[in-house]
């Protein structure tokens, strides 16, 4: 089947060069655009993190004003969450989902292009907000009122930030609709729901969460924006509003958002680990139900971000128990990944290293999450660096490691070239050591009592802060090696076969049957799953 792929003539005239990229409706090109966009923003967000670490190197002496420091942390978080991790997963999803289900494109190819392109004005507005009088948004990525109301945060950077997030919300919702319809309608013959590849399942659950959670954020931000610009009182106590309600609404979006940023990574691991161990994934159905359980429970835990905000003890108990409960499906996934490698012929290539590293560090991040779900413990470390350490372990050591592992794993499919294995291993070890170097001591700082979001701190925290700041260079080096590997392998990489990981020796995986990179139409003939295959 794979040899037939190249013989189908193009049925569409295509533009070339720049015009092609601006007008393309090909899900693979759009996926690459998403990835390129994420790449630019992850560097920008990373450099902002560098400035933050520069500021924190010394407890007192400052080149960066505390006000600009607040802008830095806000924009660092916003760029990383909304403009790096989310579009990177959307890019991988765009590229892989139609290939994995044996489709020629997404259900709505033009809408797909729109979902990408609307991120560009949003990004421009986000960056432009630094140059607005008064500077960019500086209330953190949650933008809690009353801090984010006009009385306490003058200037219009915050307004620009809100509008940019609203545009990004349109992108996410249209993208989610596209994924849901594509997955439900365009599966190849024979591919029932319980034969869907797990990455596709993970995107199905993610898209469902995006569809419901993102509009709630949009509605909430519309209210906040109107409080700021039109003098309404939705979240202003003086007018009868309630800032606590903002926290509820924000985290009703914000906690599902956490899973939106990790589930596609879970999906990738479920492909990479078994494939590189020469096995099929362990406990397929358990994995599917675990995804659905995480997606569902994710809506019932939002107030665990608000244990100290003034919610009733009964609510604390409820949200605490629900948060513990999420550890069960997550545990199922972790054990199933390990079982997927158990007894296999494991190839210790770069993607596998990233995934194994991800399991180890993500589990650690999950365990500190269980600690934080304890109300008494959370009250002690609330808004300290312990929390910062925790969520960087799940986001950087979890999502980003899975993402980079996935990019290495599917790089041959996307580019037709193999990446450089030696550089790949260097990037892994630099990032693995760097992540632990930078983020582990944050837990110590948190337990010592250092609050997050402060530009000036007490001298007893200086040692670990300097230690962390030095670790930034490890992350920088790891990022540079990874970037360099991606760039030079485009030209110098060995030509990749259709199935460089021999996935199809074990199971029928569509995306590895077509050429690398696949033709515009993916498959000359729509592939089918036989009843006997799984």
């Amino acid at each position, binding site marked *: 089947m794979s040899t037939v792929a190249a013989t*189908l*003539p193009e*049925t*569409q*005239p295509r*533009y070339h060069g720049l015009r*092609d990229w*601006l*007008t393309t*409706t090909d899900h693979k090109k759009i996926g690459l655009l998403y990835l390129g966009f994420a790449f630019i923003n992850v560097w920008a967000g990373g450099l902002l993190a560098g400035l933050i670490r520069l500021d924190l190197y010394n407890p007192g002496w400052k080149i960066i004003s505390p006000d600009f420091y607040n802008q830095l942390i806000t924009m660092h978080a916003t760029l990383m969450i909304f403009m790096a991790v989310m579009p990177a997963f959307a890019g991988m999803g765009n590229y892989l989902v139609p290939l994995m289900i044996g489709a*020629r494109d997404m*259900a*709505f*190819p*033009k*809408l797909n*292009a*729109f979902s990408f*392109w*609307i991120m*560009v*004005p*949003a990004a*421009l*507005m986000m960056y432009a907000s630094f140059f607005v009088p008064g500077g960019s948004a500086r209330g953190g990525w949650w933008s809690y009122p009353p801090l984010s109301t006009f009385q306490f945060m003058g200037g*219009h950077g915050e*307004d620009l930030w809100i*509008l940019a997030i609203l*545009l990004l919300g*349109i992108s996410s*919702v249209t993208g989610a*609709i*596209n994924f849901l*319809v594509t997955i439900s*309608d365009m599966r190849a013959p024979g591919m029932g729901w319980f034969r869907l590849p797990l990455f596709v399942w993970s995107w199905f659950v993610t898209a469902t969460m995006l*569809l419901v959670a993102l*509009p*709630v954020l*949009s*509605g*909430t931000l*519309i*209210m906040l924006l*109107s*409080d700021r*610009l*039109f*003098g*309404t*009182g*939705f979240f202003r106590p003086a*007018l*009868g*509003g*309630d800032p606590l*309600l903002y926290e*509820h609404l924000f985290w009703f979006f914000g906690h599902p958002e956490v899973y939106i940023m990790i589930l596609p990574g879970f999906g990738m691991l479920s492909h990479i680990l078994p494939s590189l161990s020469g096995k099929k994934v362990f406990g397929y159905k358990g994995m599917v139900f675990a995804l659905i359980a995480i997606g569902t429970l994710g809506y019932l835990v939002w107030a665990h971000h608000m244990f100290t905000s003034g919610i009733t003890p009964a609510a604390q108990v409820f949200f605490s128990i629900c948060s513990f409960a999420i550890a069960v499906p997550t545990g199922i996934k972790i054990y199933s990944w390990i079982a997927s490698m158990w007894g296999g012929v494991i190839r210790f290539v770069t993607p596998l290293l990233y995934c194994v590293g991800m399991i180890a560090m993500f589990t650690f991040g999950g365990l500190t999450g269980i600690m934080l779900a304890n109300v008494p413990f959370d009250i002690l470390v609330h808004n300290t660096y312990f929390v910062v350490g925790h969520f960087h372990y799940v986001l950087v050591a979890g999502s980003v490691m899975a993402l980079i592992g996935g990019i290495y794993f599917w790089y041959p499919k996307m580019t037709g070239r193999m990446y450089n294995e030696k550089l790949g291993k260097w990037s892994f070890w630099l990032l693995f050591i760097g992540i632990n170097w930078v983020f582990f001591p944050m837990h110590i700082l948190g337990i010592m009592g250092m609050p997050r979001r402060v530009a000036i701190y007490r001298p007893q925290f200086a040692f670990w802060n300097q230690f962390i700041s030095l670790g930034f260079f490890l992350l920088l080096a790891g990022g540079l090696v990874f970037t360099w590997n991606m760039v030079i392998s485009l030209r110098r990489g060995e030509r990749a076969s259709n199935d460089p990981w021999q996935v199809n020796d074990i199971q029928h995986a569509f995306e590895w049957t077509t050429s690398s990179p696949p033709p*515009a*139409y993916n498959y000359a*003939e729509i592939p089918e799953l036989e009843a006997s295959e799984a």
Partner: protein
Amino acid sequence: MESQALTAHTEAEPHAAAHASVHMPGPSYWPILLATGFGLLAMGFFFWATGASDTLWLILGAVLTLVPAMGWATTIAAERRHMDADQTGQDLHKGFLLFLVSEGCIFGAFFAHNYYIRLTAPAWPPPGAPVLATTLPAIGTLVLVLSSFVVNLAHHAIKSRRLSAAKNWLLLTIAMGIGFLAIQAYDWGFLLQFDKFTLSKGVFGSGYYIMTGFHGMHVIVGLLMLSLVYWRLERGDYNDPKYSFSTDAATWYWHFVDIIWIFLFFTIYLL
């Protein structure tokens, strides 16, 4: 640029027929144009709301949003003639329903706000808020609810190919929608002028104006969709019932706007 892609597609028809489910539209400028339009709309709103400029950019953004949106809709309608009508129809219907779900979630945030404040406030409506007259809004509600039945008549008329009847029912729906908006505008004007009741007077007014205003914007979008259907009826686009997605979408959207209003009316005026 679209026509170029389409002719080529027609030439490739015999080949596409061999692979019955080819589902690959050609390149298009509409997505990037529409995205630019949305960006300008957001910036125009920003300039206008912060007082940096008058409505110039806002209007420019609105135009740059509407033109590509219309062009896009027309392109899809034309392209579908070369594709599997049942499959694309099913996709579009599902996609539109999901879109309505997400719209409902935005309103959900407003409703959640309203009920939370209402249940935690010491008194509701808060002291100082005017007593909202219910007679005129009730008439407006009746007009909007009835228009939902009328649009159904139009929908059925299109399905059973009684096209001139469909046009009349559609015009009546549009007239009723405009009537509803007129009643709302009168209500707003009355409150603003005689009660001096503005959106910055307190959380009650904020909720009232933002929720009815946001809903009113949706009514306007619904009216635009119904007008587009009317225009396409005039062009004779609905001769084949397979290609009646836009009539379904406009009808569903109108029902959606109606259902949201019933909740709004109940929440704001009656409770």
